[in-house]
């Protein structure tokens, strides 16, 4: 066998990487190293691989593009943009008879993430498409605020995680992207147009494959992304002006942004010479208002809408125990140890992998609301947990296994 001269570029290389069969084209890797998880449409060969108790995604791609995408993903992580985590690049692969093989880009498999096609292959709520679009609009606005031009926005290049009753979107494919200090309007609008056309194409494909009802208006769903994006962009960046005596509007604007899930890092306030009008414009906004607040209070690291839901329950707990005027962090600590943790721990260990703890808690709250209504009384959380586990969670198809077997991933 001809020696390979592998070159591994990685921030923290895992020695176990060396044991993988790099001298074999990815398409021919043996099933025992692969993890059968669902994938989106792609033009490169992509496989999920088990490595040291975790799962990595391996993509075969030209060497220079591999390094470029790796660097971009690293920069996106530094900017705190929701994206997959790069692990490294491997070059210098050769087959046993000396044929050079393509370089690979390795990323960490995003846990609990679902490609959009998997979400459509199961029967789900009727507004799945709408909720995916909402999540993608938020992602695109966040990326654009960070100066990232994507160049190939699509459902396939996005991963979705359940986030309370909605989804949180993550960028998975940065191949065509570019980072700038600030995007031009042309760049933003072209990205939006690409997104619109790609989304409609992807939905048309689902219709052709009979995963989506023919009656769905795919063109309207694509147009919805543009609408949602514009709304959010305007809310986050628009300049507004008012007379000097309406200063409460500064606080109102900040509150409105908080409601949308954003913190205001910097706000420009300009008054004209005679001081009669005031103009304000957010300059720096950071996503994750609720998840940051929950993190500060409880140390829980969850997604934005899950955090919103948990914070609501925390507030309800404070009210129910008559502690609204106590130091918030003390109440939060008690809520964590007396409400959240016991509820999540009450879920049998073997079922815990199905969903993230915060998502379990969110569904638990929903379930309690549902059975309380059904039984005509306030059901305590402990009782709700039992009912949720036996009646809901246990019967839920094991999402990962079912989707992995759907065969959807490989027919691209």
């Amino acid at each position, binding site marked *: 066998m001809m020696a390979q001269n592998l070159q591994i570029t990685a921030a923290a290389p895992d020695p176990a990487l060396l044991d993988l069969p790099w001298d074999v084209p990815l398409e021919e890797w043996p099933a025992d190293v692969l993890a059968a998880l669902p994938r989106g449409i792609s033009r490169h060969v992509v496989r999920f691989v088990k490595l040291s108790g975790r799962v990595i995604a391996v993509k075969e791609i030209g060497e220079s593009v591999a390094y470029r995408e790796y660097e971009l993903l690293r920069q996106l992580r530094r900017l705190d943009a929701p994206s997959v985590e790069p692990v490294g690049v491997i070059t210098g692969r050769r087959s046993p008879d000396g044929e050079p093989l393509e370089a690979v880009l390795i990323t960490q498999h995003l846990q609990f993430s679902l490609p959009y096609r998997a979400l459509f292959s199961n029967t789900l709520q009727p507004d799945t498409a709408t909720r995916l679009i909402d999540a993608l609009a938020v992602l695109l606005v966040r990326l654009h605020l960070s100066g990232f031009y994507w160049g190939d926005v699509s459902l396939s290049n996005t991963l979705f995680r359940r986030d309370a009753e909605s989804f949180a979107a993550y960028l998975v494919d940065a191949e065509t992207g570019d980072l700038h200090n600030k995007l031009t309007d042309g760049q933003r609008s072209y990205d939006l*147009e690409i997104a619109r056309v790609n989304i409609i194409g992807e939905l048309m494909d689902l219709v052709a494959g009979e995963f989506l009802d023919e009656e769905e208006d795919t063109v309207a769903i694509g147009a919805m992304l543009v609408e949602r994006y514009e709304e959010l962009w305007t809310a986050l960046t628009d300049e507004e002006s008012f007379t000097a005596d309406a200063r409460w509007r500064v606080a109102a604007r900040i509150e409105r942004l908080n409601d949308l899930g954003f913190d205001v890092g910097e706000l420009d306030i300009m008054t004209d010479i005679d001081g009669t009008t005031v103009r304000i414009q957010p300059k720096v906004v950071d996503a994750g208002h609720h998840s940051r607040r929950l993190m500060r209070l409880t140390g829980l690291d969850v997604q934005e809408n899950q955090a919103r839901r948990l914070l609501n329950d925390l507030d309800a707990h404070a009210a129910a125990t008559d502690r609204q005027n106590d130091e918030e962090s003390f109440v939060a600590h008690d809520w964590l140890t007396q409400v959240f943790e016991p509820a999540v721990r009450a879920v049998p260990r073997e079922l815990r992998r199905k969903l993230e703890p915060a998502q379990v808690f969110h569904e638990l709250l929903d379930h309690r609301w549902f059975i309380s209504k059904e039984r005509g009384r306030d059901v305590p959380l402990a009782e709700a947990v039992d009912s949720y586990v036996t009646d809901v969670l246990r019967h839920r198809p094991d999402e990962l296994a079912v989707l992995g077997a759907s065969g959807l991933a490989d027919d691209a």
Partner: protein
Amino acid sequence: MATVTFDKATRIYPGTERPAVDALDLAVEDGEFLVLVGPSGCGKSTSLRMLAGLEDVNAGRILIGDRDVTDVQPKDRDIAMVFQNYALYPHMTVADNMGFALKIAGKPKAEIRSRVEEAAKILDLTEYLDRKPKALSGGQRQRVAMGRAIVRQPQVFLMDEPLSNLDAKLRVQTRTQIASLQRRLGVTTVYVTHDQTEALTMGDRIAVLKDGLLQQVGTPRDMYDTPANVFVAGFIGSPAMNLGTFSLAEGYAQLGSTKISVPRTAVTALGADDNAKITIGFRPESLDVVPAGTPDSIPVLVNIVEELGSDAFVYGELTGELGSKGLLHSGAGEDQVIVRVDPRKVPAKGETIHVTIRTGEQHLFHAGSGLRIDA
């Protein structure tokens, strides 16, 4: 069909002072294949993105046909960026994969079908139209992606280094395919590459950029035969042109005791800032190997011989009294000379050969400005 005009178009990135593209004046003809070429960072991509509407134009204008598109949104410019994205949809037929953008735009079914069929004919995909992409080879899939752009019948195709991701063999193949496809379609195309060979083989005309400034526009032949300045002379052509700057005395460029005769008209064209010096360029094929002792011959120590079948090139250095003085340079480096030799009479490594510049085949440039002297 349309022309493309850059009219003193300038792009200054926020936070920078030097324009990335500086007052670019360039007229692309209807149906022409124009290649923007130059070293990395010279402003090729910026120019293309300005045309696409992705980069603001800080001064000047951009026109497509007679229409000023400087402030028009990218999607309304009637352009297509090719090779941006070619993930194909697995459940849709090849025809639907090619035509779906027209369906989105609300075009009637019959028109979509006829445009798709027309594109398929050009792309050799007719028999696959009703199949799924799964049935296609890699090259055919790429053509379907091309078909997506073609059926939209844009006024202009834009391509930014579309081949950079391919291996050398496939690159040469795809290069030819793109060029011939473009000629058959006759759609105005602006193509960006850093590779001058790619530029020479593909473009109807080439525009060379350096530091955001347009150096020269012309046919591949123009660029090769009459480079407008020292930069273009050294950049275009492979192997590269040999160049040197010499003192001028009594109508001769002095290279040690070797004298290269310079035409009178060129001597009179020199100005004060040339400092009585002249830059002379000569391509590897403009040198003749001559016997030792031939008057005004230049001795070259052979370092490497590159044999390419029909051609052979000597990569050598000046030797004797001329050696290591930084008198000459070429694409191979300082003091390096490249000589094309008869492939049936290649010298050995370590040997010294003697060469003279073939009369009339030297290129003359102002030592000061670097501009060509037409003599």
